[in-house]
């Protein structure tokens, strides 16, 4: 394995990981507040097209990211109104959001097909960012660094801030939080919006970083992997980071196998269909769930109110 190939592989893995890391962090916050939003795929696509459109309109990728966050957050608000205000079923509504986001993004995207938008420049000096070795550390899109910074920030928020404590409390026991005097619905709105914004930025990574072009369904099911990732991580931030890179590696294996990369050197591995690797994140999620429940690990279990509508007893 040549050093060039190793570097290229690592860069690919980081590229595959960043969108699911961003979307996973957003979903983690949403789920910690007790809301299961299965619409991640839809929100990512909405973020992808809104980010693309905002960049095309302003020729500024930074404003594009803000557009992506807004697109993801706005589409999540549709979900939020339905499940929080009208108490609709979270699973059904989340699935509907995924389908709706896929369709709406395609509709908006029709006029953008074939266009190319300006991309982020590197944030580090070229001497580092373009260096064949140093680019491993300094050569990425700003969104990669943003995702990595968000991991400790999220962990700190959940563990050490009062707002994080309240968010966890709302997800753990909504009725108690309500009776103490916290606004369950308000906290959940904020958590869903944050989840939508991060999913949107994650989606924009496809339309603004991986390719500077828009294509329908370009997130290719990564929203579902982000959902699995949150479960795989046992609702813990640190494990979410590890899990995201592990899943990124599995997705890289899929691409590698598709490109006949094992080829002659490892013919046994090449025998395995690439779909096997594509399925692995989900298989690993089930394995992780089984381990969590067999150990009876309290800290790694779902927030107690996850997926349950909050109906205050008047």
């Amino acid at each position, binding site marked *: 394995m040549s050093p060039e190939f190793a570097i290229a592989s690592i860069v690919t893995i980081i590229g595959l990981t960043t969108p699911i890391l961003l979307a996973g962090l957003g979903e983690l916050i949403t789920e910690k507040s007790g809301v299961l939003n299965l619409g991640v795929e839809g929100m990512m696509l909405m973020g992808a097209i809104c980010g693309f459109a905002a960049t095309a309109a302003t020729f500024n990728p930074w404003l594009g990211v803000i557009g992506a966050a807004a697109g993801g957050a706005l589409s999540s608000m549709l979900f939020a109104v339905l499940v929080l205000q009208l108490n609709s079923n979270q699973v059904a509504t989340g699935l509907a959001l995924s389908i709706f986001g896929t369709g709406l993004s395609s509709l908006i995207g029709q006029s953008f097909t074939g266009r190319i938008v300006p991309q982020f420049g590197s944030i580090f000096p070229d001497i580092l960012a373009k260096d064949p070795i140093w680019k491993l550390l300094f050569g990425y899109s700003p969104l990669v660094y943003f995702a990595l910074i968000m991991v400790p920030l999220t962990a700190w928020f959940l563990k050490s801030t009062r707002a994080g*404590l309240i968010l966890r409390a709302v997800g*753990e*026991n909504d009725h*108690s*939080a309500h009776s103490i005097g*916290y606004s369950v619905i308000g906290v959940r709105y904020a958590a869903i919006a944050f989840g939508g914004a991060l999913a949107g930025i994650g989606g924009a990574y496809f339309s603004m970083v991986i390719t500077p072009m828009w294509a329908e369904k370009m997130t290719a099911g990564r929203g579902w992997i982000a959902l699995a990732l949150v479960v795989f991580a046992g609702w813990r931030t640190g494990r979410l980071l590890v899990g995201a890179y592990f899943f990124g590696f599995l997705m890289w294996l899929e691409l590698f196998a598709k490109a006949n990369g094992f080829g002659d050197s490892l013919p046994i591995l090449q025998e395995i269909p690439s779909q096997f690797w594509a399925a692995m994140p989900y298989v690993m999620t089930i394995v992780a769930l089984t381990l969590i429940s067999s150990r*009876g690990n*309290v*800290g790694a*279990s779902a927030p107690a109110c996850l997926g349950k509508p909050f109906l205050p007893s008047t």
Partner: protein
Amino acid sequence: MQTPPRLDLSGITKRFPGVLANDQVSFAVQPGEIHALLGENGAGKSTLVKMIYGIMQPDAGVIRWNGAPITIANPKAARKLGIGMVFQHFSLFEAMTVLENIALGMDAKIPARDLEAKIVAVMQQYGLKLEPHRIVSTLSVGERQRIEIVRALLLNPNLLIMDEPTSVLTPQEVEQLFVVLRQLAAEGCSILYISHKLHEIKALCDTATILRGGKLVDTCDPAVETSRSMAEKMIGGSLKDIQRGEGRALGKPKLIVQGLSVPKDGPFGVALKDIGFSVKAGEIFGIAGVAGNGQNALLLALSGEVAAQNAEAIYVDTTCVGALSAKQRRLAGMASVPEERNGHAAVPDFSLSDNAILTARDRMGMVSGGMVNARTAKTYAGEVITAFSVKATGPAAMADSLSGGNLQKFIMGREIMQKPQVLVVSQPTWGVDAGAAAAIHQALVDLAATGSAIVVISQDLDELLSLCDTLAVINEGRLSNPMPVAGANIEEIGLLMGGIHGETQTPELSHAS
């Protein structure tokens, strides 16, 4: 009196769709007074205190605090005034630590270390024992209540509202709680104490306000009243005693349980260890204990939802039923009623007649050749409704349209009218008003008089003492030796209930989880 009352309610009215929850309620609580709020379920006590604590707003009426009229917009505003509340159903977060739970109840942002120091100071002042860094799910019920109390005390309350605080405590824990409450009152804090346990109110409270059907019935001095007179004011009629047949003789053992062990299900379950007892024909056998000591596991093992490890563990008469399913046990004459009405004993979205089919289909001939005979089921449900005076629109009424007490009467009736040889019931009168509770108790006594053996699992010791012939205590999945109720020693029962959950427990041991 020179100083104005701490809390003065006048003409408080609250209306819900179809119900007048509070109708022109007026009373006052003085500084340092322990004031009881008495009433049956549905009398409007909870609604009233929710308005005092700012969770709801009154439709009409004035609340005065230290003489000045105020609006309590939300619980935060209530706490700012110095109103603390300890809920009946604890508002705790199971997967979080004691410290985090207390921090959530504080409005001021206090650094965790300072908060911990404050907590320790309050606990020392009132002799409350609690370990701040334990996860709540590992604590006993009494310890959980202490979290709520500490949380309320940290606010230096001027008025502490206690909503049925003793319903889940052992007699010893109740005594400790009363010591704390008396100390608080002596320091000038007013206490609004909600309960329906009349002897506690006589022992603790200075004044009692009695509500019935949302209206204030009377404000009286519990020291002057008798328990009976207060109970009659509560239910608005004369209290019926349980009528027992004279010269009842117990028959041969009907239900024999020996060496019954069940492993625990899940991290918070309780394993049953070598349970043994026998119940004679005509006997009512009570199983007392603090919640979470294996009562659920025992009910599941007796009902057949969980098969015994050893088939010989349970006998009905001479039939060995330990390995049989719930359906087979019903055919063998053994019926059961679990604690949870909605979702376990009955399907909320099913009609009463469909719910009757669920457990009575075989014994009452509602199914033949795989087909349900809806008419038989409807007739049977109608008979149950009539015989147990269930307030429902008829057999077609949905189970969840009934009030808790009425659904419980229906479920008890559904089992009792099948004339089971053995009936196992858990918490037969939990959350049921006094009238319905009396009817359920009478039905159990009447069933026993026909020669059935009855097992009653309950956390309400008063209920067991008035109902049962024999009593045993379950603690940590082990059952004590049975003792006759006549001449039972409350002190001893309390100690058995406390088991190692009591105050003798060393802090080191409690870290074992």
